[in-house]
């Protein structure tokens, strides 16, 4: 990655007390990069640094080849002069201005007269289906409307980079789906790179072209949604996408797991440190030892918890290895499954996804 890259390129390092964020980020024009991570992983700090609200303590940020921040040379473009649109998690619509004037704010302060700025705003409001609301105050908007106004306000300034901080998290579940679909359309229309911070994996999978997973201020995985969903790199990502994940060491077909236990998985080319991903629905539960078969991995485990999900029951099992297993409510009744019970688990070798335990290629040094 070089600074002359078209789109966004950055080696971000921000130190705040004990916490340090180190992340390398690249986003091409037209690409939606979702930054996924738990609370306190540094997602918002990353956006804040790119927007110029938080100066870097190390590294640099460049947009379309122009340096916005460089901790070494000291170069720094103030937030007001960066061609960046920012949609805040809490929207931050100016309460004293109408919807129209909120959206006209950016064109206005960037030099347009009152009337041309309002014309630009009218245009955006029409495009976002908000023309009827232009004279309302932000306090009189619903959550979904406020979200769209915030997006319109960020876009009206004509930014070349769009930053969205948890854009849907303030919405209730019902509105979220509608707004999500709409947001996807508008993001597709946006020509520049777009960074979207979220802790909702579904939002990331639906909206993003590529995912970047942050944990404790570090990039732990980067890839397309499909890659990340199939081969999670960490426990956190595995839980997000609903997979069992085991770290282990491969020696031929035999994979010894770190937490105890082992799997036999023929036909993989990995050696040394590997990760094994297993879908909870791919595990079969039985109350007696099943017929031993070479293509099946079989091991005993104890049920420690049962949770009813919409159409299935998730069993929490402790054993070597421990696992989450999904069964039908009918199976729970037939087998008489209950907490504390000893059962047998088995999984076909073909259901076990074995892959190298490598860190993402583009993570920042250190």
């Amino acid at each position, binding site marked *: 990655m070089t600074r002359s890259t078209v789109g966004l390129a950055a080696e971000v390092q921000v130190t705040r007390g004990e916490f340090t964020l180190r992340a390398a980020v690249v986003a091409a024009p037209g690409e939606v990069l979702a930054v996924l991570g738990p609370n306190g992983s540094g997602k918002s700090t990353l956006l804040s640094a790119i927007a110029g609200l938080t100066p870097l303590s190390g590294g640099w940020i460049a947009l379309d080849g122009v340096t916005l921040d460089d901790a070494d040379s000291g170069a720094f473009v103030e937030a*007001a002069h960066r061609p960046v649109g920012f949609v805040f998690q809490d929207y931050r619509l100016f309460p004293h201005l109408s919807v129209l004037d909120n959206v006209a704010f950016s064109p206005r302060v960037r030099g347009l007269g009152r009337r041309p700025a309002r014309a630009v705003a009218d245009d955006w409001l029409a495009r976002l289906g908000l023309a009827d609301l232009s004279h309302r105050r932000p306090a009189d908007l619903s959550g979904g409307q406020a979200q769209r106004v915030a997006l319109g306000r960020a876009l009206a300034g004509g930014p070349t980079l769009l930053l969205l901080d948890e854009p849907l998290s303030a919405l209730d579940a019902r509105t979220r789906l509608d707004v999500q679909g709409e947001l996807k359309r508008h993001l597709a229309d946006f020509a520049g790179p777009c960074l979207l911070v979220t802790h909702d994996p579904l939002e990331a999978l639906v909206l993003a072209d590529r995912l970047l997973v942050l944990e404790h201020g570090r990039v732990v995985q980067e890839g397309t949604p499909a890659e990340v969903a199939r081969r999670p790199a960490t426990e956190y990502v595995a839980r997000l996408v609903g997979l069992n994940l085991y770290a282990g060491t491969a020696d031929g077909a035999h994979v010894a797991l770190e937490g105890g236990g082992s799997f036999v998985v023929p036909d993989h080319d990995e050696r040394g440190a590997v990760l094994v991903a297993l879908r909870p629905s791919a595990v079969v539960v039985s109350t007696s030892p099943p017929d031993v078969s070479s293509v099946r991995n079989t091991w005993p485990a104890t049920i420690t918890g049962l949770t009813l999900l919409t159409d299935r029951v998730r069993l929490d099992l402790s054993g070597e290895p421990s696992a989450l297993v999904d069964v039908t409510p009918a199976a729970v009744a037939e087998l008489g499954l209950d907490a504390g019970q000893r059962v047998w688990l088995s999984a076909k070798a073909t259901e076990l996804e074995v892959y190298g335990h490598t860190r993402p290629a583009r993570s920042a040094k250190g």
Partner: protein
Amino acid sequence: MTGARTSVREPAGRPPASATLSRRERERRSVTGVGARSAPLPLLVPALVAVAFLVIPLAGLLIRAPWANAWEVLHGSQVAEALTLSLWTSTLATAISVVVGVPLAWVLARTDLPGLRLVRALVTLPLVLPPVVGGVALLLAFGRNGFLGQFLDQWFGITIPFSPAAVVMAETFVAMPFLVVTVEGALRSADRGFEEAAATLGARRLTVFRRVTLPLVMPSLAAGAVLCWARALGEFGATITFAGSFPGRTQTMPIAVYYALETDPDAAILLSLVLLLVSVVVLVALRDRWLRGGAAP
């Protein structure tokens, strides 16, 4: 176990206190969601004493006022001159306070300049300083022999003390801190997120101040200005020390009241009533802020 707990709450031989609750009271409590309307005596009695102490003197003004020949009394005194002087000087003092006090409040609330804590202490000092001391201090600085005043006198022939300008200065000195403190508090509690948002939309710092910060603290600025104006209007100690009491020139309403009390008590009462009326108007203007049980917006 239940029995044991009950015996702790209800000492033996004493049944739970029972009284009747009227239908209206039931309805009121269920609607407002609060407890009994009455207050326990140890709280109610001191509260009534406080109310009486604050209200009785005002009632005295109304009772003793010479309503019958009010017009002649007022006409005979210099009330029009004093009131005019008071109104324009306190308004000018407020305007000056807004023009320099709001930027000062911003600097105190938003910057990290060295010595800011000392500046804040000095700026708020007039709030607690006896106004007479303020007047003496102004005299020593801007008086004919003051360390600044002597140069104004020698070089420009400007003499400030005992002029209407001195009235305005004395009032500004005493009243501006009220505005600064009010606006600074509002700026501190204002959501910085809006300013960040404005910055990402391309607004420079001065634009952010003008188009976002200022409108957001406008209610507090208005309240601070009214407070400042009321304080300037009632200013006595600093004004009489620094500006004296020349009728028509530096004699403001409070000073006129004070002198009238010696020569013409009826006029003093009526002048006081005029000031009371102005105060009531101010209070009504600020009712949203102060009369809503402390839940200021």
